[in-house]
């Protein structure tokens, strides 16, 4: 079996923690813009960003007590939306070590766990890589 990574135009490595800045918002916006242009994209998450695709999140955020019946999508639901819309051009990887360390397992379907000692393979597989934040 060929274990080589697929090539991609851009890797967005989300290294920093969500919730302390608008980094994840920017990552989703940039991924969407790249994919709408027909590019191929890899997303890698490290640290607490591995929790973005934790299956435990479900499809919706906890209820808003002042807008009880409104549905607010979870991070996992938005990742699934991206993967559904661009199944052949988006690959989403999550660091296996961070996933275990931060309790993010199990992930939703289609999230591929990779060991951190393989990370340079991900850098080699793309034309351009951006590191968003720091672990």
């Amino acid at each position, binding site marked *: 079996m060929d274990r080589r990574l697929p090539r991609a*135009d851009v890797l967005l490595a989300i290294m920093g923690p969500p919730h302390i*800045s*608008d980094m994840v918002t*920017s990552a989703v916006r*940039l991924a969407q*813009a790249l994919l709408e242009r027909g590019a191929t994209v890899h997303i890698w998450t490290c640290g607490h960003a591995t929790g973005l695709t934790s299956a435990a999140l479900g499809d919706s955020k906890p209820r808003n007590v002042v807008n009880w019946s409104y549905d607010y999508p979870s991070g996992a639901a938005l990742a699934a939306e991206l993967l559904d819309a661009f199944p052949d051009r988006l690959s989403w990887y999550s660091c296996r070590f961070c996933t275990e360390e931060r309790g993010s397992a199990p992930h939703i379907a289609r999230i591929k766990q990779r060991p951190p000692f393989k990370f340079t393979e991900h850098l080699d597989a793309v034309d351009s890589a951006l590191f*968003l934040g720091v672990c």
Partner: protein
Amino acid sequence: MDEYLLIESQGPWGGPGADRFVADATRLRRAGHRVALFLVENGTSAAFTGADEALRELLEAGGQVWVDAFSTTHRAFAPDRLLPGARLVDMDEVAGKLLEPGVRGVWH
């Protein structure tokens, strides 16, 4: 000569690193490289205070300053306070630049 797309996401309230990153952009430009600095998230704030010398230096050196329109709207920054010479852009334009062959992207 290389071409850089440098992305500043933190801005003055994120600590001194933002100015250092803009200085990196100016240094690269003065070394002869093409440089576009894209301000996004709180990084956009530097383009609206009227007090950011580091951005002025980059513009004077011939660099470009792009400012994310989405972040600007979300932060209620007044477009008429935008630093002269800087330009509001959307994420599609940023994606297009990043996909140009040879463009080196760096996120701060």
